[in-house]
């Protein structure tokens, strides 16, 4: 069997270096298998997150040769092995140790988005009626596995560090899933404009490209939300009407 070299970030929050490891490559292997083999053979304390190993939990996000991917779904036969494969944690968040990034910010952001608020039930037994075509779009958003790869590539977070002002594509998708939920009665448009910084997104679609669940983040979630904000706050006619109403 042939061997390949993996250059992996080793180190803590402050300092780190890239360390090369060699391990055998067999048919069908994914990057996460290589990391596990390296743990078992030569680096037992190499830290990485993983759970399902089937692209369903979104734990093993990393940058493989600089590309944001799930380690469990990246087959070795799709990347060149004649040179070392670099594996690093996602960079939009602080590194904790080795391949682990501190993603706790994401959990805080989610709490700030107003929760689901359903309308009164449609039927006497306390249930609702919704047609499949009315929930298709929301189901697309709810496929999200919270791997945060979209947050990782978003330049507003990654390059401009606007974590205080902008919630990132993951949570715009989350907000869209709530806003477009047929039963939801809450209004998040004001928050999207002010608190969640939707205006920062200039639709470069990097997030859509890296989404392992193939959610059309920009076109289906972010742009419709932006339109709602524009309709609500920047429509000249509406502003005029509002002005008169105030008087």
């Amino acid at each position, binding site marked *: 069997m042939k061997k390949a070299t993996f250059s992996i970030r080793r180190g803590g929050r402050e300092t780190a270096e890239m360390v090369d490891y060699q391990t055998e490559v067999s048919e069908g292997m994914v990057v996460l298998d290589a990391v596990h083999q390296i743990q078992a053979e030569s680096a037992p304390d190499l*830290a990485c*997150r993983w759970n399902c190993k089937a692209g369903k939990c*979104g734990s093993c996000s990393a940058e493989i040769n600089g590309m944001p991917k799930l380690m469990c779904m990246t087959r070795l036969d799709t990347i060149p092995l004649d040179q070392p494969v670099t594996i690093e944690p996602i960079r939009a968040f602080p590194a904790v140790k080795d391949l682990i990034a501190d993603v706790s910010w994401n959990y805080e952001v989610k709490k700030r988005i107003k929760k689901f608020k*359903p309308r009164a039930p449609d039927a006497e037994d306390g*249930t609702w009626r919704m047609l499949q075509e009315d929930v298709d779009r929301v*189901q697309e958003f709810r*496929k999200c596995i919270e791997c945060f790869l979209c947050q990782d590539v978003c330049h507003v977070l990654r390059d401009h560090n606007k974590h205080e002002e902008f919630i990132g594509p993951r949570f715009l998708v989350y907000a869209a899933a709530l806003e477009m939920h047929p039963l939801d009665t809450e209004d998040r448009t004001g928050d999207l404009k002010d608190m969640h910084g939707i205006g920062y997104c200039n639709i470069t679609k990097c997030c859509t490209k890296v989404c392992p669940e193939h959610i059309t983040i920009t076109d289906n979630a972010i742009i419709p939300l932006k339109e709602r904000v524009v309709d609500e706050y920047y429509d000249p006619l509406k502003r005029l009407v509002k002005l008169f109403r105030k008087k």
Partner: protein
Amino acid sequence: MTDYPTFEHDVIVIGAGGAGLRAAIEASGSGVSVGLICKSLLGKAHTVMAEGGMAAAMGHNDDRDNWKVHFSDTMRGGQYVNNWRMAELHAKEAPDRVRELESWGAVFDRTKDGRINQRNFGGHRYPRLAHVGDRTGLELIRTLQDHGIHQGIEVYMEVTVLSLLKDGDRVVGCLAYEREHGRFRIYKAKAVILATGGIGRAYKITSNSWEGTGDGHALAYDAGAELIDMEFIQFHPTGMVWPPSVRGILVTEGVRGEGGILRNSEGKRFMFDDIPDNYKDQTSDTEEEGWRYVTGDKNARRPPELLTRDHVARCIMREVKAGRGSPHGGVYLDIAWIKEKIKDAPEHIKKKLPSMYHQFKQLANLDITTTPMEVGPTTHYVMGGIRVNADTQESTVPGLFAAGECAAGINGANRLGGNSLSDLIVFGKRAGEHAAIFAKENGHGTLDNAAIEQTAKAALEPFDRDGGENPYTIQHDLQEMMQANVGIVRQHDEMVEALNGLDALKSRAARTFVPGNIDFNPGWHTALDLHNLLVVSEAIARAAIERKESRGGHFREDFPGKDPEFAKFNYSLKKSEGGGMEISKNPIPEMPDYLKEVIEEMG
């Protein structure tokens, strides 16, 4: 005196999958303070891997369905060694729990008239599984997570529990470490709920993640609680078998629910060859009738691919052993064939089974809309676990509750697909409710500092040694041995050999060595998990040796038949005074008349 950081709550929930989250929501909703401990990040628990759906007799797709049919299906599937009271509560309460999820924002697939759509699954007489494509588990966990974060539950992510702390007989908290810095911490609680899931990592071929190391089982056992039914392990018939790195990853039963069929290398649909007597009346005679069933014909009976998992897994093993398997030691699961029956079959398959489509496309380079999949049995679920009171989910130790996979009773000898997700929400809720009541009636206990120090010191020993065993190697050897000796087909001598092997592994586990420091060190975590894996493996082997018959997930080559004597009790395992594992028989209480009537009525 220990000076570890101490966190105080009324109720501590250990485990944040479906059961843990549902328990935490219920407890905190009743006004007590709740701490939720996750081994991983929130929302990543193994529940996300559940694909097919959650069983609840709502009768949306077939109005003949009701709790009685669901109850009798569950008992039949479990071969009547289930805790009948749990099966009853589960069947009665699941519909409300599913509707509640909808009111919390879950978006299930819909019927034509706008209600929650329900799909067929193995062992369920009518279409019963509320689902979202083939990612129902993700929908469940995300709904509970997004609801729970607004409830004031304190969530502790990436924290692993090492031991339960006791004051006399009662559990009053736990000792844990947080992953990032490896520091110990103490959680004080008036009641503790275990919701830690399964034990799949005791086997080589498994659908379970690294977390499934039987933590709750071992924590409860060490605290003096009883485990029951540990011989009953569910080997899911359809795991991936190729390429090697994905061996064991689950292929949802939903594939068969949507019309997928099993064939051997000769192209034969072998499931028609062996239909158990007690399912003959419910199973179709012809391929044509089977197809009518999966397409919604209420007069048709289900195809034999949708027999219970234990049976399907054994039929696959039989074909492979007889030399009629696929090239990599499985059989063929074919959904592509439905193109003979319906237009736009590829689009239909992608819509109904999107994650299966992607999983095979990405990991095996195979298009399931054109090519049959290779599948074989994979360790999936443990029916056995902590013995609990059916109504309250309290274990045999005061103050200690359990829910979900780590608790036992509802499934008997074999779990029906789809009964797990509904189990999580039905009994998660009950555990949360009753733990909160217990917490309101009892104060905090006193912590035993000596016990804390002893556990903490032992946990650090792998760093103190100058060299020793590699924990990954021990885990690997254990998995190989359990797979070979206490796997799908069992016999006495091999299992006795396994017990001896476990002794050897125990002494090796006491000599582990881990380089590096306590900061986020997976080698150390693996070393610490070994104890739990060894406890559950021993429990499985001991119970499996004693049960000298075949029933459900437990198949003995030396006792291939079912023996009615063994239907009268569950095997129970408990730590003896001397520290060894003690096995005894727990008689199954007689079913009340109204439930007996249900069983008779349902045939």
